[in-house]
């Protein structure tokens, strides 16, 4: 009974827990409930990964209405993998949350905060498992609206402003997606992804479908923060509360990348998408420009959260490079990088949250010398930073390596070279922070600060430990990703 309904429980549990949190009306109880829900969701996601690995794709008809009439959830290797790491990060960040939330958000809002957090998770997980295009839009809006609200909770007045700017850009993106869905629906008469895929070739209306694809891509690119549509991201990540930044940075953009992968490989065929429309080269160019521009911008930031935000924009470029290669190696690299980068960036933002908790500032100049008074936190930054650079024995190396070899296999020489050159910029911006942490004279505030509380350090080290673990042992990162990529390409040859 429960086993058969796992796909829908994944969504319903956080969705139902959110109003319960509101009803509870007290921060502590809401926290306990949301923590419980997130643990349950993670357990379900793991169960789904196992089940999908054993018995193949799970199709779940909601309400018993068969598609294309009803809405269908499709859990295959890729979506179960996504759901697993989104829920895992959501859970760990929630474990990490209390100290930071207590400091940054007024107590009277805590229960609402946790409810919104769960809703955001609901939306993101929903995008991962749904097999219906319009349903994607609905879940996208759930996650977007909740993230606007979460971002606006930051302590400075910039936070609501950044949230509003994100809302405007994000809504344009969502409307573009809606237009794209409409055009696809018009040409195929259905909203079920698999159904669209099976009917799309029989239609002789390539111009409309091309435009539909273009609109969906642009809309998703806004959500992914692909250069030059990334303008909302630095502000949003910088001014949001630390916990929110950790969660959103680790998951939201990756889920949009996932939606894009679905679009290209699940609905359109890569052949149609990339041969008829020269979108791969366009994406490649924008990815590369974005990588360089954003990495360079990151080097010159004084605010560490903003630095990491620009780095995120750059890293999205790597993921898209992989996806636009449209072969198994490239796609695998893209998917692995989603996972690895989620770990690395989530971990680094958590480290930043620890420093902000103790030092009350995210400016690098205020962190000078903090590596000595907060050795554990500082060390975690160093490890996470090495991951971001892509040094061997860290997860970042795995994805960089896969991307590099895939580019070489494709014969994309200049891309491979540029990719490696750009990772030198990562060395610059990561090491800038390390040097400030260890080689600068500490200020009085830094000298007076103590190590971050264990309640934050343990989850942080859980993530940072994963960065190292998945840099050595890749069965459940690269292995699952490769299986997912093979499945995607096998399904639509």
């Amino acid at each position, binding site marked *: 009974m429960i086993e058969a309904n796992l796909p829908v429980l994944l969504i319903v549990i956080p969705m139902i827990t959110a109003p319960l949190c509101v009803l509870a009306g007290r921060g502590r109880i809401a926290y306990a409930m949301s923590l419980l829900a997130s643990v349950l969701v993670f357990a379900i996601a793991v169960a789904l990964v196992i089940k999908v690995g054993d018995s193949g794709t799970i199709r779940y008809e909601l309400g018993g209405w068969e598609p294309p009439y009803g809405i269908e959830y499709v859990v295959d290797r890729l979506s179960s993998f996504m759901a697993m790491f989104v829920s895992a990060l959501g859970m760990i960040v929630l474990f990490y949350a209390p100290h930071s939330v207590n400091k940054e958000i007024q107590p009277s809002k805590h229960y609402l905060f946790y409810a919104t957090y769960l809703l955001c998770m609901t939306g993101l997980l929903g995008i991962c498992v749904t097999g219906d295009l319009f349903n994607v839009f609905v879940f996208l809006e759930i996650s977007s609206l909740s993230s606007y609200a979460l971002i606006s909770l930051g302590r400075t007045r910039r936070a609501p402003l950044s949230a509003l700017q994100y809302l405007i850009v994000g809504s344009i993106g969502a409307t573009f997606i809606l237009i794209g869905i409409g055009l696809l629906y018009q040409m195929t008469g259905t909203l079920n992804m698999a159904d669209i895929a099976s009917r799309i070739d029989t239609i002789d209306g390539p111009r409309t479908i091309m435009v539909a694809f273009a609109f969906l891509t642009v809309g998703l690119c806004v959500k992914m923060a692909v250069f030059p549509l990334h303008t909302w991201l630095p502000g949003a990540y910088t001014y949001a509360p630390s916990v929110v930044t950790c969660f959103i940075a680790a998951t939201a953009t990756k889920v949009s990348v996932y939606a894009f992968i679905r679009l290209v490989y699940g609905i359109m065929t890569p052949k149609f998408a990339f041969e008829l429309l020269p979108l791969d080269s366009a994406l490649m160019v924008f990815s590369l420009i974005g990588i360089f521009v954003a990495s360079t911008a990151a080097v010159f930031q004084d605010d560490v959260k903003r630095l990491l935000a620009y780095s995120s924009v750059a890293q999205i470029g790597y993921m898209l490079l992989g996806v636009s290669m449209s072969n198994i190696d490239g796609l695998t690299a893209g998917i692995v990088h989603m996972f690895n980068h989620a770990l690395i960036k989530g971990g680094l933002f958590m480290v930043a949250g620890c420093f902000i908790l103790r030092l009350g500032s995210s400016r690098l100049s205020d962190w000078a010398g903090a590596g000595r008074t907060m050795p554990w936190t500082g060390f975690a930054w160093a490890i996470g930073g090495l991951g971001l650079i892509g040094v*061997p024995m860290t997860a970042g190396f795995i994805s960089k390596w896969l991307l590099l070899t895939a580019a070489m296999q494709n014969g994309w020489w200049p891309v491979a070279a540029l990719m490696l050159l750009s990772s030198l910029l990562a060395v610059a911006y990561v090491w800038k922070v390390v040097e400030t942490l260890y080689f600068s004279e500490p200020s009085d505030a830094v000298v007076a600060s103590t190590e971050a509380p264990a309640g934050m350090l343990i989850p942080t080290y859980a993530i940072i430990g994963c960065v190292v673990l998945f840099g050595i042992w890749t069965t459940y990162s690269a292995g699952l990703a490769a299986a997912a990529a093979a499945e995607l390409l096998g399904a639509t040859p």
Partner: protein
Amino acid sequence: MTDPVNLIVLSLVLPLVAFVMNFVLGNRPNARECSTVVIATILFGVVGLLASSVFDGQRPELFVSEMLPGFSIAFSVEPLGMIFALVASGLWILTTIYGAGYMRGHHEKHQTRFFGCFALAIFAAIAAAFSSNLFTMFVAYELMTVSTYPLVTHHGTAEAKSGGRIYLGILLSTSIAFFMMAIAWTWSLCGTLDFKQGGILNVPYEAGEISTLALGVLLGLFAFGIGKAALMPMHRWLPAAMVAPTPVSALLHAVAVVKVGVFSLLKVVVYIFGIDLLQATGVNLWLAYVAGFTIVVASIIAMTKDNLKARLAYSTIGQLAYISLGAALATPDSVIGGGMHIVMHAVGKITLFFCAGAIYVAAHKKNISDMAGLGRQMPWTFGAFLVASVSIIGLPPGGGAWSKWFLAVGTAETHQYALTAALMISSLLNIAYLVPIPIQAFLKPRPDRDSNHDSDHSHDHGEAPLACVIPLVITATLSIVLFFAAEPIYQALLPIVSE
């Protein structure tokens, strides 16, 4: 237990054990350093046992895991790596003893971290030495870079910061931008990264998948990508890293770090390109001239340095270029010469660094011009310095004579007489910048230092602590012994160049 495969496992695990023990025993310095010395000694024994079977012709292999499909962490021991591992593990014992003396004599902070990172670096060196494919080698190479960064910046000063920045910047940049690229390129050509007797690139070359010019570019990517080989213009990190405490300079910049560089280059030439392919295409010659240029220029710069460690650093750059030259010439004799020079230079140069550290601990002197007359207070130290200099210069009875001989033979075989000349000139330059140091220490009187009020007690110091002096005497002796023991090394290296 003496199964060679088990020995590989042991020799990889032991440095890690030392690493852990360091932190476990962090509060008790005596126990901490004893444990390291004991483990280092066991390691040397293990590596020695392994060596005996490898030199008998065995090639034990250890497959650890397939990290990514097609890319595995695996080890297999061949003579070149064996010799490197012997050198690294053997000198680790001496350096630990020396380091304990130096760090205490100097009241350095963070000694636990220091010895911990040291052990990690040794692990990386052993892993690189035994690596059976380029992927494993690259992982070990990068691990070495990262684990030595805290050692270089040990003092935590602004100077250490900028030195560390150059160190990490150049080593990481070259390895990421060039070395990684070269590996990925090789993989896309060959579909494998395994080291193979006779090379693997000859297959795609014969199939016409890579042009001769591209082959030259690939060699360039490897040569400059392996920044630790310090070929000019990628050499700047080495002098910058001299801000580190002297034991670091000694082990890492005479043995582990720099030797990993040239060792990797040799291995790439021998097992990836194959010397036959290089001889046939001739794409290697430009690299030989870069090496020759580096040899001469580095020696000239060394002469201008008054700071002893800086002079030794440039000397190291020049000496490393000898080994690179051996690799670049790609004749059997030159490759063997390069391999031998890894040993000879390691023993010689570590002695010189030990001496520099000892002088600094005892007399607080960094500059050569201040060392006149010190030889009478520190006879052992300067005696060792003289002996090691002889070996570095390449004069009998120093071990370096043999390796230089083979390199010179290599240049002659390939008819690159300009390079033969470069070798000769650099030997003269070596004499000019090394020999005067002990000579003036022994023969020149101490300058009058009335103006200097600390002159009173600076006259009273004797030798450095015993923990410093014993290791340097041992290594100096070794560099003489090696002159007479060169034959086994030659015999051991012979299999790598013969089919």
